[in-house]
């Protein structure tokens, strides 16, 4: 199935958990903040958050800024 991850189309297997996606795409998951379809998903819910076709996922973290 296809999802939109940080603005890019990605092909992932069905029934993937958010946690699996984060672990696959982020080298360091410690500081990741996740949002699925505009809603924040708390870290302890990553595992039970199942991703559906067409979902929009945003993975963000802190960077330098003024």
């Amino acid at each position: 199935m296809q999802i939109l991850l940080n603005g890019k189309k990605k092909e992932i297997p069905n029934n993937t958990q958010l946690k699996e996606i984060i672990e696959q795409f982020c080298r360091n998951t410690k500081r990741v903040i996740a949002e699925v379809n505009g809603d924040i998903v708390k870290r302890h819910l990553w595992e039970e958050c199942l991703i559906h076709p067409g979902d929009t996922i945003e993975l963000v973290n802190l960077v330098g800024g003024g």
Partner: protein
Amino acid sequence: MNPSTLTTSLTIQDEPLIIAGKSFTNRFLLGTGKFKNKKDLAESIEASGAEIVTVALRRIDLERHEDNILEYIPKNVTLLVNTSGARNAKEAVRIAHLVREAGYGNWIKIEVINDSKYLLPDNAETIKATEILSKENFVVLPYIYPDLYVARELVKAGAATVMPLGSFIGSNQGLKAKEFIQVLIDEIDLPIIVDAGIGFPSQAAEAMEIGADAVLANTAVATAGRPALLAKAFAMAIQAGRLGYLSKLPVKKDLASPSSPLTGFLYENDNTIERR
């Protein structure tokens, strides 16, 4: 350098900068963007003595590994996350929620910009975001184009400080908005932190001399040839400007006024004849 150690016989009594009940002795806020490398950043934070540093929230670059910026920021420094990238109040609020959710505290610098040419903050949207986030118990530091009416609205909205821009962001042009910042300093009963456009230590000192409570700089330090040196220079200039302000500065005059007495000159002969 602590003000009280400047001289042994002079004790300078200055109040700390208090934001939302939290006390700070250093009046220099450092931004962490644009540094060439993390070593420069870490050294600059240390040299600045900053007790508050700003960071931003961005999409993770999935293609390459990025260092975690928090590794370079000492734990005792207050993290102020900006909402840069937000084009309206709604987006700023969303960023604030992400920040809190991730456990990065509740200090938010509202930065709403939807003009890519001048990068001026949208004051109206900033007021809206401040209202919403203050009610949700965020400590809100709004970045604005200096305007008295807007600042008054921000006070009503529950802002913790007001952060007027000195000049165009990243321009290093200094206090172009000086007269209007002065109005805010005189009229608004919240800490006034001059943000944006401060490029040289002398400009930061000038902001402090007119009574600003603190100064935030980023681009200037990050893009200097030797960032840590400039960070230190800013810290000292801000302290010097603050002391100047506390000294109750003398008044500017249009004409000359001698600094030495005008009487009792040597070699001055009195040609009048004294008659006995």
